[in-house]
């Protein structure tokens, strides 16, 4: 008894104590407290635009507003002219391609497929006025739409099909007197509605962020840090941090978690060590599309179907569009767990001029580079949007369709529901050959998940990845993940070793027992002597 007590006191007790002490080491996260304090100070504007004499007048057209802005903010126009929000393209070096000039201006995607020949409607989300077609003057600062980003009145609105012009009849005088730093709904005006509706494209950027609860987004929620977009997407001279790899390619000017939280944000050092290979987002954004569904699949091949000669729509019980004659078939998901992949901050894109290989059954709209051996690569969460879109079976290139026009008979798919006309019109606009023969090809697009950061207690737990099967990182290769990564040969050998040891022991013991029985039979009085044997 004494031995057992000593044993418990000397061995088990210390283990339990040490474990409890370490387990409950919930030291205050000093860094996080400092950040909270820093961001609790509200921004006080240095200027009240309603007091400016120049703004006490009516404006006939929006270009006049821009001219008035530039009359005081003299250098801002030039700044904007060199900004990607304005040019929709960037110079970037891509491995295998060299220096490229890519962006929304010339890239394809697998949502609405691309802006070319559709500028009048797509470019409602351009920070300019009048980008109706490729004749738009990107060098004229008076074409800049200052208000879409700087309107704090909430009254400003751009017209559908207006190539960036505001809806007619706005009270521009009231609006200009309330300009200021961009707020959530300025950025969200475009970024929440990419792909043609709320949360369609990104899955982690949507109107619910305007009034997000703590569970949805700790940064933007009023219960949390109540941050504006630009608090993270820091901007200097109209150059803002942040990369969207649907259009970006290089590892520069990224807005990162570490910008505020540093590379060592956790009190627990093991968690900090994870960040060498695992991006913050991977654990801290366990699900996206938390409030409204996001589009996961878009099949253009089923478009142009008619019911009784008329285009039609099919909705699910929640009101999500499952089919529409003008766009085809959609799949949606809500509270989606991301996919995960290695990413080093650089990406490639499928250009409209790229040739699709004879054996390719899938095109990658964008390719996120990186693998386990790359010191710059970490495991990131992504939304994978799959699509089926038209390509030229003869020239083997993706086809840009003309989707929109104000008038029927101009070849616009959404107006006339005629693929042949729409494809021909689109390719004619792009200036690329179209053979007239087309089919639809599967496509894949990778969208990084960066927003909708969950409260810490809802972050992924150890077992979400550290499990033999069904873990979040099941498809991730090239890195040792305890519990998930198996040592198959060693496990087989080890289990056999244990089985053989056990079997050997059982056989030996049985033989000993039989031998003892035999001896007992010969000399029965042996039983007493060797009872314990």
């Amino acid at each position: 008894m004494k031995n057992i007590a000593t044993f418990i006191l000397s061995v088990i007790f210390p283990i339990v104590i040490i474990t409890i002490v370490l387990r409950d080491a919930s030291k205050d996260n000093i860094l996080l407290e400092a950040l909270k304090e820093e961001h609790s100070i509200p921004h006080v504007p240095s200027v009240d635009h309603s007091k400016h004499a120049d703004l006490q007048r009516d404006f006939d057209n929006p270009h006049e507003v821009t001219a008035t802005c530039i009359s005081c903010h003299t250098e801002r126009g030039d700044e904007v002219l060199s900004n990607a929000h304005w040019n929709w393209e960037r110079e970037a070096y891509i491995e295998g391609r060299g220096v490229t000039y890519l962006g929304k201006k010339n890239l394809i995607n697998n949502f609405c497929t691309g802006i070319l020949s559709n500028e009048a409607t797509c470019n409602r989300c351009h920070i300019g006025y009048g980008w109706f077609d490729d004749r738009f003057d990107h060098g004229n600062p008076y074409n800049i739409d200052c208000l879409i980003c700087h309107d704090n009145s909430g009254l400003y609105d751009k017209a559908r099909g207006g190539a960036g012009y505001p809806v007619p009849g706005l009270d521009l005088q009231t609006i200009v007197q309330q300009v200021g730093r961009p707020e959530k709904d300025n950025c969200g005006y475009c970024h929440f509605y990419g792909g043609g509706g709320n949360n369609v494209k990104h899955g982690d950027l949507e109107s619910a962020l305007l009034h997000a609860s703590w569970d949805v987004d700790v940064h933007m929620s009023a219960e949390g840090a109540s941050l504006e977009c630009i608090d993270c997407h820091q901007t200097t001279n109209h150059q803002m941090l942040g990369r969207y790899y649907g259009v970006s390619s290089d590892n520069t000017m990224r807005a990162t978690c570490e910008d505020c939280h540093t590379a060592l944000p956790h009190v627990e050092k093991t968690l900090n060590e994870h960040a060498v290979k695992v991006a913050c987002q991977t654990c801290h954004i366990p699900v996206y599309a938390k409030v409204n569904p996001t589009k996961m699949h878009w099949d253009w091949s089923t478009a142009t179907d008619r019911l009784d000669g008329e285009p039609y729509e099919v909705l699910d019980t929640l009101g999500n569009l499952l089919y529409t004659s003008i766009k085809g078939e959609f799949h949606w998901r809500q509270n989606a767990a991301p996919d995960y992949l290695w990413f080093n901050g650089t990406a490639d894109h499928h250009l409209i001029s790229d040739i699709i290989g004879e054996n390719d059954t899938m095109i990658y709209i964008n390719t996120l580079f990186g693998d386990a051996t790359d010191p710059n690569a970490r495991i990131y969460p992504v939304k994978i949007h799959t699509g089926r879109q038209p390509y030229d079976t003869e020239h083997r290139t993706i086809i840009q369709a003309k989707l929109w026009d104000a008038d029927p008979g101009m070849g616009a798919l959404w107006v006339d529901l005629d693929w042949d006309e729409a494809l021909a019109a689109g390719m004619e606009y792009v200036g690329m050959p179209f053979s007239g023969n087309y089919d639809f090809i599967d496509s894949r697009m990778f969208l990084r998940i960066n927003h909708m950061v969950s409260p810490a207690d809802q972050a992924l737990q150890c077992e979400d990845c550290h499990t033999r099967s069904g873990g979040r990182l099941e498809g991730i290769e090239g890195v040792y993940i305890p519990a998930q990564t198996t040592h198959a040969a060693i496990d087989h050998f080890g289990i056999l070793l244990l089985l053989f040891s056990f079997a050997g022991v059982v056989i030996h013991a049985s033989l000993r027992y039989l031998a003892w029985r035999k001896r007992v039979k010969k000399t029965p009085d042996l039983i007493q002597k060797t009872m314990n044997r």
Partner: protein
Amino acid sequence: MKKVYLYTRYERFWHWTQAFLILFLALTGFEIHGSYRLFGFENAVLLHNNAAWILIVLIIFTIFWHFTTGEWRQYVPTSKNLKAQVAYYVTGIFRNTPHPTKKTSLSKLNPMQRLVYLGLKIIFIPVMVLSGLAYMFYRVQIDGAIQSPGLYDLYLVSAIHTLGAYILLAFVIVHIYLITTGHTLTSNLRAMVTGWEELEEEPLQEAEREVRRQDIKSK
């Protein structure tokens, strides 16, 4: 038959603490390995690491004990009687032939035990400790940054550690069985609990002990 005090208090404490720690490390270790779920991964890691540190401290104390008491001599391998010992386990034990090696307090271990325990001491346990430490310190936080020296491959380290764990477990299975082959089924177990074991007559025991004490002192 004579009762002999074979295992000192520290030796027994060491033996049972090590036994418990090895089993506990196996239990938590194979959870980390992904073989089953018991404590939860985070707790398993925490328990495993703490138990590992306790075992390391115990090992350091025990190395000290081995040298100060001269008990390390028990593990000096010998080929004398080795064949006879193997033959005993393979055939003799079934015919009730006597143990080929007499157990005395000066020579507690038979030639097979000497070999196996020495192997544990100088190969298997060091490999487990070193691979475990290599695993623990694969990345370290120094001067506000995570350092990854990258001197070795974590997958390889974990493979070695896992292989060692299987071998140690196999040892435990066989060891637990072989302790039933003493004078009676439980005499070895009792000895390791109480320190006292019934042995065949050992006439020179005390005298020899005295000689060795002198021997150690003179060194």
